């Protein structure tokens, strides 16, 4: 953490004033609030759209759980509706909610502010990114109303069933689903290029890469892997669309269905799986890496202690990102692929556990000898550690090839991925919203509502997904409309299913407390001031709160230190903002460097 003196910076770089500020600002209400090119507005548009469509996914999850707990009870539920709910829930959660909210939402809001930039480097393209994302969401929603309803192919959309009769929504739903994915990827690419170039080119004076907050590292790295991974899904979606609409045979072999020989021939269903998971596994880290980054900053700020092992944390993020591209076939151990692949992919998959575990140790070691403030964001960060460790460890079962054989396609898998890439990242999303809401609105979220929301969500989610592993161990398969009569599932499993469903409904309803809090605190929340958490990173040092267009007023901040100068020995306060010049420090430390 070498301090750069103010003098070297002033002589090395030109001043950062913007001469024609007036030309740069939007002129009308429409360009300020709707077709805005301000990354902060775009971030809010992305987040609100994602959370809104996320509520649809929440309702879909209730439908799934009601059917599993009370089969043959609800007249609105048949097998087709069930599989449509499963598909819509999974697809929205992974793509339209988590990817969008982490990169489009937090990425847009935090990157420019945290690196001391005025905005993304291509504001116009950034605006287009959101509107294309919105179009993707609307096409997805349109599929709900298409003849035959949305596709019920499962979120993995495996051909041949995805485009054949026998799967709900095979006529129109699947076409709209694929079109929506293609739009999403186009929109994401526009935003993603922006985030990457902004981090590489838009950092303010003194903000070296190794001084960036881990939030920026996480979002930046996730964006890089998303830019490399989404094209595989794009290609898969285009080919499947051709198979469905024009009758080509990319993924379709010769098939006889209900006694009728179809016109397909020579395609490979398993090729789609490779393309899908070449995207699909990095996708896990597209969601996880921003969560890793943000939770690091939450823990450090609220424990008033520097993140332990910053450099290790950065390199762990980078090595996880690289490894994430060579583990994809661990989703395919029982797919019938070339058996020897199992050796390679099991080894790479278990290797990825090492950098991931180091990150966990460093979070916990940051708490060690900290000054822990159990604020709502900190509570969510701690809950993230618990659920992520749990979900990560069950990954060691499923990644270890032969152990996966009995467990794959059972409820164990469902429990695992919900814990690790559902519950854990969403807890970070909540923690991050409680943490950054004051910067976005100038007001604090209500603490009591936050506590209620936290406890129900954390303990409820754990109670839902921890026991679910054991249903999978027992052998209950996933994606079953009903388990019906078997010789191996005891009646007690039914009781467990009812328990899980009741808890899921309670947790779902508790989210309304959160939504209410978001709106209530907008007007009634306690005023926060510019830096309520006494944090070091640049977004808390803006001249205005909420920050205005251009973020920094007349002059950009200059960075003199890393983002984790908490409780520095000899310093007066227990935090030193990144833009605090060294001279402002009191004697001991300044002399030491």
């Amino acid at each position, binding site marked *: 953490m070498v301090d750069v003196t103010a003098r070297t910076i002033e002589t090395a770089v030109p001043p950062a004033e913007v001469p024609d500020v007036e030309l740069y600002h939007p002129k009308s209400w429409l360009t300020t609030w709707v077709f805005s090119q301000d990354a902060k507005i775009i971030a809010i548009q992305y987040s609100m759209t994602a959370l809104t469509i996320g509520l649809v996914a929440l309702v879909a999850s209730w439908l799934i759980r009601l059917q599993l707990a009370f089969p043959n009870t609800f007249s609105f539920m048949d097998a087709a509706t069930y599989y449509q709910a499963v598909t819509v829930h999974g697809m929205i959660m992974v793509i339209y909610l988590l990817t969008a909210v982490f990169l489009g939402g937090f990425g847009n809001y935090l990157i420019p502010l945290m690196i001391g930039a005025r905005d993304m480097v291509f504001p116009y393209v950034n605006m287009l990114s959101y509107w294309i994302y919105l179009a993707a969401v609307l096409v997805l929603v349109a599929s709900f109303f298409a003849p035959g309803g949305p596709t019920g192919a499962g979120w993995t959309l495996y051909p041949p069933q995805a485009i054949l009769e026998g799967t709900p929504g095979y006529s129109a739903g699947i076409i709209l689903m694929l079109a929506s994915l293609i739009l999403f990827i186009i929109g994401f690419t526009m935003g993603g290029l922006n985030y990457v170039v902004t981090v590489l080119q838009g950092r303010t004076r003194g903000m070296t890469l190794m001084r960036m907050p881990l939030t920026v590292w996480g979002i930046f790295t996730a964006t890089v892997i998303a830019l490399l991974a989404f094209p595989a899904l794009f290609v898969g979606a285009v080919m499947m669309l051709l198979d469905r609409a024009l009758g080509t045979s990319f993924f379709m072999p010769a098939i006889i269905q209900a006694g009728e020989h179809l016109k397909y021939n020579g*395609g490979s269903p398993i090729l789609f799986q490779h393309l899908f998971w070449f995207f699909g596994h990095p996708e896990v880290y597209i969601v996880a890496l921003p969560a890793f980054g943000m939770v690091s900053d939450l823990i450090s700020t609220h424990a008033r202690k520097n993140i332990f092992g910053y450099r290790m944390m950065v390199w762990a993020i980078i090595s996880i990102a690289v490894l994430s591209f060579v583990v994809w076939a661990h989703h395919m151990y029982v797919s*019938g692929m070339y*058996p020897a692949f199992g050796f390679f992919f099991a080894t790479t998959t*278990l290797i990825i556990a090492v950098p991931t575990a180091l990150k966990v140790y460093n979070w916990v070691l940051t708490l*060690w000898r900290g*000054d822990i403030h159990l604020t709502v964001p900190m509570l969510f960060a701690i809950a993230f550690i618990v659920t992520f460790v749990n979900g990560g460890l069950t990954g060691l079962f499923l990644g*270890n090839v032969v152990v996966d054989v*009995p467990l794959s396609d059972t409820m164990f898998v469902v429990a695992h991925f919900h814990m690790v890439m559902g519950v854990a990242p969403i807890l970070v999303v909540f923690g991050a919203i409680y943490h950054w809401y004051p910067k976005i609105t100038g007001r604090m979220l209500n603490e009591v509502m936050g506590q209620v929301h936290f406890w129900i969500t954390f303990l409820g989610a754990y109670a839902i997904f921890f026991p679910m592993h054991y249903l999978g161990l027992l052998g209950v398969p996933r994606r079953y409309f009903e388990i019906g009569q078997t010789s191996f599932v005891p009646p007690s499993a039914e009781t467990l299913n009812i328990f899980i469903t009741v808890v899921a409904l309670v947790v779902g309803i508790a989210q309304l407390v959160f939504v209410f809090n978001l709106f209530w605190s907008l007007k009634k929340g306690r005023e926060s001031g510019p830096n309520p958490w006494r944090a070091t990173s640049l977004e808390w040092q803006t001249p205005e709160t909420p920050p205005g267009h251009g973020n920094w007023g007349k002059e950009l901040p200059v960075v003199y230190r890393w983002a984790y100068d908490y409780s520095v020995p000899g310093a007066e306060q227990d935090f030193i903002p990144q833009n605090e010049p060294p001279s402002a420090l009191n004697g001991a430390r300044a002399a030491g460097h």
Partner: protein
Amino acid sequence: MAVAVVLVLVALGSVVFHMLSPWWWTPIASNWGFIDNTILITFWITGAVFVAVVLFTAYCIYTFRHREGLRADYEPENQKLETWLGLGTALGVAAMLTPGLVVWYQFVTVPEGAAEIEVVGQQWSWAYRFPGPDGKLGTTDVRYIGPDNPLGLNPSDPNGSDDVIVDGGDLHLPRGGPIKVLLRSTDVLHDFYVPEFRAKMDMIPGTVTYFWLTPTRDGTFDILCAEYCGVGHANMRGTVVVEDAAKQKAWLSQQKSFAELSARGRTAAR
């Protein structure tokens, strides 16, 4: 304080749940006990790590909770500690990966002389085929499939005419000898899944996949489809009976061969 207590309860509660859970794997009926053992090793290692991390977190939260005048330490990194933690983790990972890869080698290496049978999946039912007296399965193709040739056997392949076809009944397997299960689908992906066997594998139209096992315990077990295959996925059930070889042979001799089935088809057509 409350947070620390809750974390301790979460860690210990999870262990207690694991111990007392009435939901555990089915009694095994195949040679894949090694898989169960690898799962147990993984449970022990991951369980210990989970409890340790959560309890340590709870300890930190309690001991270093904010009080007036408390100030955090300033320690950016400790490379020695990080190296040791990294090495320890690598060791734990190796302890799970090694048995995993050894057993996988067994899983993908079909023993010489394993008996071959075939399972065919279609929306939403199972069919089975045994080689006839010649011990060879005939070739197949989806385009041969018709009303009296449900599995698409090549009518001009002499190896196929004595193949025994079980379409719509239970599957009987002999106990004690290794069996290579060849898997085929005529329409979409399926997965031949018998929880008691532990082994499973997807079936892919256009390809023949396989796995092998040795049934070790007599009994009647459910066959389920474990790869989503459309609205009827959950109804795609079957039954497999494991019995001693003589009984199974007697059962097999009562089933119809491909030649008998297609002759019957021709008679019916006339």
